[in-house]
């Protein structure tokens, strides 16, 4: 995904690192892949 706006201080970076969200690879590791299709959010999708 797009990189989040750059953290300024070292603390931010560290926080971000520990709190980084799960990447697609992480998800692939825990969810079944074969027999499944990952669908794309509709253009109008706005996460609440």
């Amino acid at each position: 995904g797009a990189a989040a706006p750059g953290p300024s201080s070292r603390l931010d970076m560290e926080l971000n690192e520990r709190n980084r969200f799960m990447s697609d690879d992480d998800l692939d590791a825990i969810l079944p892949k074969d027999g499944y299709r990952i669908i794309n959010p509709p253009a109008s999708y706005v996460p609440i």
Partner: protein
Amino acid sequence: MPFNVADDDLYDLFGKYGAIRQIRVGTAPDTKGTAYVVYEDILDARNACEHLSGFNVGGRYITVLYYN
């Protein structure tokens, strides 16, 4: 889950409960009719679980299970 639920419907239905990280839809004969919905936040997932379990989608009831 009924087979004819369109991708957008899934996002509409599940998106009400929180930011969706990813949705995987079963396409193979043995996975058709099932889907994995990943939320950014575990609380949203639980919220969705509580509200959607037994919900009627397109004429068929959906069962919502935690995947862990």
